[in-house]
């Protein structure tokens, strides 16, 4: 009317400028360290490089190194010749132990706590406490507790008759199990609190209706609680899978960068670290990280496809 820009256009332009400037820093940093880094990782996986010299295009050679490693491992090659295979095998065993046990434990404890009991907040706080502590700190404390004359052997000797003390940390057979126990200890309480909240969000009327229909507490648990918890169970399992498959901190401290005796505590994440920073083969590290990504993506995808999407 009086100027070529109407007030609405001005207001809209102002809003666009404001919006774009407010998001700019967050978006730029995430593009650089997220998307650009991802593309760079893809690029890197086709090159041989030592961070300093010329990058040398090697095609699919880096991926071939990984696959040869896996094949050697399948044929029974020792750990030093098939580090990726060893890490992968360990991490799959570890995940197969940790995820079901921590999920199951969390549900059971939540079910116990989801009653009219005194001190519910105390239980929540004590179960949650491990999750607020750094996994490195937790690992350091547990190394001591796992020592041959340590507290855990002492406790087990009192619970299990005829139990012989184990040297957990220095044993090929028990190291991975020890790491798994620490992981379960560290995360199950946190998930228990999530389950408890989800249980408390289930409307009381549903239980009352079931009670009138003659369902006892056990049947109520299996026919109401568990189905109503499904989105939360899927969430906990997916989070558990993502965490377990990338396990690094606990292994680094408890097993060391080289995975401890016979590589018993070696993981894929440790192997990627070693490729990048010890063996100085960033291209191979990138290739291995894509394998890890594929493994995490397919397991979580398949799980969610079968059991429904995780809750947000």
């Amino acid at each position, binding site marked *: *009317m*009086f100027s070529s820009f*109407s*007030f*609405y256009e001005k*207001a809209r332009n102002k809003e666009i400028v404001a919006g774009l400037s407010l998001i700019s820093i967050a978006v730029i940093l995430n593009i650089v360290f997220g998307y650009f880094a991802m593309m760079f990782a893809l690029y890197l996986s086709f090159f041989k490089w030592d961070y300093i010299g010329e990058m040398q295009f090697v095609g699919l050679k880096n991926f071939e190194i990984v696959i040869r490693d896996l094949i050697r491992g399948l044929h029974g090659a020792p750990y030093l010749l098939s580090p990726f295979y060893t890490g992968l095998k360990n991490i799959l065993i570890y995940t197969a132990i940790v995820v079901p046990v921590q999920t199951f434990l969390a549900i059971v404890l939540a079910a116990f706590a989801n009653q009219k009991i005194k001190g519910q907040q105390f239980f929540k706080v004590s179960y949650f406490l491990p999750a607020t502590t750094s996994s490195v700190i937790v690992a350091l404390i547990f190394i001591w507790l796992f020592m041959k004359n340590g507290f855990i052997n002492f406790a087990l000797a009192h619970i299990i008759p005829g139990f012989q003390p184990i040297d957990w940390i220095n044993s090929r057979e028990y190291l991975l199990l020890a790491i798994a126990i620490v992981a379960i200890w560290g995360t199950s309480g946190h998930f228990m609190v999530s389950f408890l909240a989800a249980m408390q969000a289930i409307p009381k009327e549903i239980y009352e209706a079931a009670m009138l229909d003659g369902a006892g507490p056990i049947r109520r648990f299996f026919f109401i609680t568990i189905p109503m918890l499904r989105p939360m169970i899927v969430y906990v399992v997916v989070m558990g899978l993502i965490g377990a498959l990338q396990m690094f901190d606990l292994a680094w401290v408890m097993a060391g960068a080289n995975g401890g005796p016979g590589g018993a505590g070696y993981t894929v994440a440790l192997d990627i670290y070693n490729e990048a920073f010890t063996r100085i083969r960033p291209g191979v590290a990138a290739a291995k990280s894509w394998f890890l990504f594929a493994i995490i993506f397919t397991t979580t995808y398949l799980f969610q496809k079968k059991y429904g999407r995780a809750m947000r």
Partner: protein
Amino acid sequence: MVRVLLKNVTKKFGNVIAVNKLNLEIKDGEFMVLLGPSGCGKSTTLRMIAGLETPTEGEIWIGEQLVNEIDPTKRNTAMVFQSYALYPHMTVFGNIEFPLKMARVPKQERIKKVKEVAEFLGISELLNRKPSELSGGQQQRVALARALVREPEVFLLDEPLSNLDAKIRTQMRFELKKLLSYELKITTIYVTHDQVEAMTMADRIAVMNRGVLQQVGTPDEIFYKPSNTFVATFVGSPPMNLIEGEILKKDNKVIFDAGEFSLELPEDVGIEGKAVLGFRPQHVQIAKEEKAGFVRGKILGIEKLGVESYGHVTYGNLEIVIQLPEEVGSNITEVYWKPKEDRIYIFDSKTKKLVYG
């Protein structure tokens, strides 16, 4: 004081037409109520006047100014929201002061103005409290104060009473009307879906439905001269009875044939053929015994609302509501009724527009 003029105002959200070619004039100092069911476009209209929405087409004039291109803060309007939209983190003082602060009014003047408005609305003792510490009625007053402090020429209110409980609502209705129309004499546009609010507060009512203006008029005009079946049934409680049927002329008499029964209509009804007959439940004559020209009806149920009671009479799928005289007990099962002749309405069967009455 100014008038507000809407010329052919249309608002589309994608393919949905929220307001369709609306023409409406709100006069100087007038209290105009926009009345209609939810989704009828009344709030959208108000928001366009405030400047929160852009009209897709048409012109909005406030005073002598075309405001389509004017920033909301420069339109001399103020708006009170349904939820009051008080800023919860600011004190009452901070809330009222905020528009002045944004307009860069000097501090001393701001304090003076806030105190004046607070004094005027009787909320001076509340200035240091937070909105969450106030009752619904007090919050309402703070919202009014925040709007008034800008000294607007047009006051816009969007369902301002619907968050209050019934008792305070009646009281606030009266207070608002007194404040805006008698003390400030300010041009006011008031949106509501509550016909009682509209009838008791408005100088004029604009009834809207599906984005289209149905009728503009004084509360009496809206009630006694509804321009179509929508207005007729939306205003008035219980709603007007509408009966579809046919108007026939027999032996110099005008007869309305509803199938199940027929009624004699006044002779000056000059229409024949299909039509919709309307009459309000309150405008019915009742007899206990059979009487010439009265229709027999079985009472299905009686609604007692204190002094008034309404009987539901059915004929097949048709249900008619009639007010029963006080002396008629609650255990009668049969009644003879007849609409008062001077209180009947006839609507066109197709266009649903008023053709007689």
